[in-house]
């Protein structure tokens, strides 16, 4: 199950585990093709050139494999799509719920991963 976005996708929990263990900076947006999620995918797509040191991925929220995001302690209070998680050296550095604008996303990227 993959989302029809131009981003690279994470399809399985194992795949996500592998990426966050191999890459220093990873941002994963876990959502659906809904109005709160699509703008976040669009912003991520645009930031890819600017933040070459960050791996940008999406993941389908309704995939059973997305338990790896849905069940994170950092997401336990989340009640709005998408769940967006920022991993630094394999650990959750930040997580947000619901739509975020470009400034909100870049401020987390800059803070956690550097410019």
């Amino acid at each position, binding site marked *: 199950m993959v989302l029809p976005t131009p981003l690279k996708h994470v399809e399985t929990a194992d795949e996500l585990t592998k990426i966050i263990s191999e890459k220093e900076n990873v941002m994963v947006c876990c959502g659906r093709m809904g*109005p709160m999620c699509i*703008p976040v995918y669009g*912003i991520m797509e645009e930031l890819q050139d600017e933040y070459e040191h960050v791996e940008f991925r999406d993941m389908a929220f309704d995939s059973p494999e997305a338990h790896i995001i849905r069940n994170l302690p950092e997401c336990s209070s*989340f009640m709005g*799509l998408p769940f967006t998680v920022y991993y630094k050296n394999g650990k959750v550095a930040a997580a947000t*719920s*619901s739509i975020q604008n*470009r400034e909100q996303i870049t401020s987390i990227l800059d803070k956690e991963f550097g410019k």
Partner: protein
Amino acid sequence: MYKNRRQLIHKTTMEAIHYDSIIIGAGPAGLTAGIYLSRAKAKTLILDSGIAGGQMILTHEIANYPGIESISGYELSNNMRVQARKFGCDMLSGISIAQIDFESEVKSLKLSNGKSFTADSIILATGGRSRMIGAPGETNFKGRGISYCATCDGDFFQDKEIAVIGGGNTALEEAVALTKYASKVTLIHQFDHFQGFKHAEEEARANEKIHIQLNSRVVSFNGNDKLKSITVENLLTHELTDIELDGVFIFIGYEANTDFLQGRCIRLNERQEIVTDDKLQTNVQGVFAAGDALAKRFRQITTAVSDGTIAALNALEHINQRKQKAAEAKAS
């Protein structure tokens, strides 16, 4: 025209680029203006602080766009963007405007990244954004109990008690839609009557799960890591009541994205919407406006498309008059 964004950025670091028209905003009004202008061979740039589509991209399903039975807001946005690009329209998204000079004959603007542009005409199509209540806790609990999209987040509230804030069509319709999930929906509105269509109100009133609380406003959102309750003021008695619940959906309309125009030469009304004449020209010659940022009653994708067309055709006339004047001056 510039083949890609990188080339345009590289060029703009060197000098200000001149366009026949610069459109600020890439929602349906801005994209339509871009399609018309670039198809008429006017050198056109669309700037947007976010991504192309505006409020349209937040619409799950559009079922009243003539000629298209059903389409997602994302798909319609993308179609318009591709169409504008195909005609040669340049686009820059994710920008912020640092400086403007619209009063001179040649309009100029500078972005916060230092890049500068000039133009013979400007079209302000900056659109609107969901209005927030502004009560304490609203920002903290976004995505942790507060939502602005029923279709996105409704299923998080299965068998839970929620509130819907607002009294227009969206609030009434979404309150009904949310009863598919929630055990109880309290519909809170500040006035003593609803502003939505009669049939929408009747449907909400007939639904057993919906409890209506008029003459009321939320004064605070309360909780720790997630929303636990809201404090509501009765506007007639000023009595404060805490309502324990799991979620709140807010649908209280839109406000114009005109912050960067406040205190400048462009005339705004008391709601900070742009005032124009019947050509959709503002009080400044050569500066036009279109879409949801306009002072007007109806805000639909179709009305934005109409505004974008009218503004573009009048901007085109303005551009051609300027070119003709310049040619005559050169000849004499």
